[in-house]
């Protein structure tokens, strides 16, 4: 075995290496999920893509090749421990250079989703504006969070209705979205506020913003975790769509079906 042969992480334990979903019309779409050394929700993001009907592969932060994936998810976690500033080191990973340039292209730019730490990485990489600071109450917070989809026109939200509400888990320490007023006004004016917290702002984020997009709508970042509301029995106890069973909420699935359907055309 050589170092080169180890470029993609081996996934041990009970989790599936995951990937294809034979019956789905969407399985021709392959989503790459980036693993940094401190990524935590990478396998969960792979599972979410699979449950949405697509195919998923793991991408290693140290690689220089996007392996022809059709879209990329930067998952939650603490990419390099985040002792400096969340995402500050990750943006310099070799794979991030590839992602940044592919996501910045024109009409067929690469769709990229940053969840939690992934959102932080995207702001550090300047694919998205603003920044995340420590929650205003200074604690880590894990709770089921209600959001409103403010823009159903992005690559990652087209399967939702405009203004639709969803419930997905939120869990972070540095989740307070901040930006200067001009940037905030710009985001609002251009319809780039994609998700907004409703029923209580959990971290002091400016204007209750939970997620935003770039101007083209291919790059989206959000703090809450849609990949933890995709499988009945393992999601939140509630859904914005009405009564569900215990941990039956699957409101996050739409994020993943959105991009898959969009890419299939």
């Amino acid at each position: 075995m050589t170092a080169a042969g180890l470029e993609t992480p081996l996934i041990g334990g009970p989790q599936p290496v995951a990937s294809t979903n034979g019956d789905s019309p969407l399985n021709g779409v392959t989503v790459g999920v980036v693993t940094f050394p401190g990524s935590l929700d990478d396998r969960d993001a792979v599972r979410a893509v699979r449950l949405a009907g697509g195919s998923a592969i793991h991408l290693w932060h140290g690689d220089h090749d996007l392996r022809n994936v059709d879209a990329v998810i930067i998952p939650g976690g603490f990419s390099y421990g985040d002792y400096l500033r969340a995402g500050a080191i990750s943006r310099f990973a070799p794979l991030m250079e590839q992602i940044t340039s592919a996501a910045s292209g024109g009409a067929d730019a690469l769709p990229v989703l940053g969840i939690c730490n992934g959102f932080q990485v995207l702001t550090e990489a300047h694919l998205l504006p603003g920044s995340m600071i420590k929650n205003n109450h200074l604690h880590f917070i894990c709770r089921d969070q209600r959001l409103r989809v403010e823009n159903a026109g992005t690559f990652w939200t087209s399967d939702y209705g405009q203004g639709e509400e969803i419930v997905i888990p939120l869990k972070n320490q540095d989740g307070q979205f901040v930006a200067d007023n001009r940037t905030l006004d710009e985001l609002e004016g251009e319809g780039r506020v994609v998700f907004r917290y409703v029923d209580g702002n959990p971290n002091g984020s400016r204007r209750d913003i939970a997620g935003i997009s770039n101007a083209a709508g291919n790059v989206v970042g959000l703090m809450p975790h849609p990949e933890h509301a995709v499988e009945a029995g393992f999601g939140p106890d509630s859904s914005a769509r009405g009564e569900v069973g215990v941990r039956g909420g699957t409101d996050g699935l739409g994020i993943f079906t959105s991009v898959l359907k969009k890419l299939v055309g």
Partner: protein
Amino acid sequence: MTAETSRRFNIDTVANAEATPGQALPWAELGLKENEYQRVEEILGRRPTGAELAMYSVMWSEHCSYKSSKVHLRQFGEKVTDAMKEHLLVGIGENAGVVDIGDGWAVTFKVESHNHPSFVEPYQGAATGVGGIVRDIISMGARPVAVMDPLRFGAIDHPDTARLVHGIVAGIGGYGNSLGLPNIGGEVVFDSVYQGNPLVNALAVGVLRHEDIRLANASGAGNRVVLFGARTGGDGIGGASVLASESFDSSKPSKRPAVQVGDPFAEKVLIECCLELFKASVVEGIQDLGAAGISCATSELASNGDGGMHVELTNVLLRDPSLTPGEILMSESQERMMAVVTPGNVADFEAIMDKWAVEYSWLGEVTDTGRLIIEWDGEKIVDVDPRTVAHEGPVYERPYHRPEWLDGVQANGFAAERPTDLRAAVLELMASPNMCSKDWVTDQYDRYVQGNTALAMPDDAGVVRVDEETGLGVAISTDANGRYSYLNPYEGARLALAEAYRNVATSGAEPLAVTDCLNFGSPEDPEVMWQFAETVRGLADACQELGVPVTGGNVSLYNQTGGIAIHPTPVVGVLGVFDDVARRTPSGWREDGQAVYLLGTTADELDGSEWANLRGHLGGQPPVLDLAAEKTLAAILVNCSRDGMIDGAHDLSEGGLAAGLSEMALRFGVGARIGLDELCERDGIDAFTALFSESQARAVVAVPRSEEVRFNDMCTARNFPTIRIGVVDTENQALDVQGYFNLPIDQLREAHEGTLPKYFG
């Protein structure tokens, strides 16, 4: 390292020790007793070197050697029957026990204490407690899949409590969340007996395939020994010996430097890197570095394998180059592992380290000489039989006797006047420090990561899926009641096991195995020692009666400040198995019209109860335990889950039926109409007793109308008492105990959820 380095110290070599027999050594400062030091001299046939003294002092500490508890702990092995061994793949003695859960899957789990460090330095103490137990799980070859933390603090309104609560909860969250491990349960208890000695116990669970089990031994002469992970620093020196194995005493200097400092990112990388090592089969034996650091890892690996090891200590990568050999051997720097690798696998090992950017250094090799030789720049500083360090430490038969005060305490049953305003009493109970919502704590823990959490707090047990294809999974619950154990340590231990067992069964899982963390005062106090002896006897007996073996655990002694010891607090964790976690039972009801049944009988048992605690009373005898009834109840609850006969279930324990009904209503915010008259008449009790007694072997279940006949038939067939006490009512947002009170859910929730934010905001 070069000769230049060694010149910086006046190295006490073996040759020097032989030449200077009369030289005084600081054995007392390192925590050794005079007779123990003499034994070291006898074993070696000379005085120990400074490095050898460091090793013996930490490895013979109470924390590492179990010298006071060993003679009692043997019962856990002796009282295990063949039937109980059926599911055991690895028993007591390894880093953690391993249990077969079917389909080729196995689970390893263990609970440990990090009490002393967490009092001295709450954030780091609690954080490294999580780190240490997780490394134990990895060492077995398993991927960690969940953690939980049973915590006990002093009085909620004591000025020092907030410091500990904030630091400890943030430390557990800060470390565990960064590892990507869902925190699925635990306990938070407040009692002034824990004021100077908070209990921070940490449990971790891991899963693995049968063929992946790894053990801590160094076999095969010529195999290489490698240390990898974080660098070795000056933190945690004496953590096991002078910190964890002594009582607190305000006259001594701060023990803060003896607390380790954690780096969760390093641990997360270490987890992934170890799992990759296992998958590639490049390590022969592996051992995590926790208490006693390199002293423990080298001596345990060597004595569990071919018996010899040769190590060059200057090869250890250091954070602080000024550390002496003795300090390097004693350092408890976190996030380190030691492994044994065949020469043929060295290149593959290094490739995996490089991929994860983990630092490593080759320290030496396995030998068949039966000696552990440690050199410093080629000069021999340790030459010992590793078994004398790791396994043949002192064993004490500490004197013990039943405290004379106990008769008086047991005779003083709870006889205070019972309140007539039951509504106010329920609100007071549900807002009290021990019964209030723990959301403020658990919301600081990630319960979602890994995507397999099927139940977490506030449900009776934490449940995680192991196999995504089949739904195979496990349930875990930890419980202890220090007040019960204070009143009667034998029964207290059995009651703790019964509650954890009942919790696991209430969630629908078949209880399979036990881990325990025995938290006590000083073993040098004969009364504490008696409590300990009674606890172990009770727990071993109850395990045998319930047919669930203890697979591993931890003893934490010296939880004592001055002459004040904590209540004996045996924290018992029970692991159960699900063929499919989809059938787990949540701890609340939600469907309108479902029937609410109470399983079991209620007697007037308020001694040691939460209600008595609220009235400042502790006396009498804990509730009577009937393990045969517990077994039947568990079988009913598991069958109900399997056959879809119930939609919600909650065991009754602290706070009795009042707490059980309140929590079931709060779980999904759905009310119920409850009638107590029939129950009171059947059991010959008043309404207050019905609500607040803590009689055992009871649970409340919500039964769909269509299942009532089947449910009743099953209870009748098993001759288990059951009574219909009410009906779920989604219309009225209230817990309506007819004839006594009507408590709107909102009001109940406000009382229940307001307490912790009020104190810790």
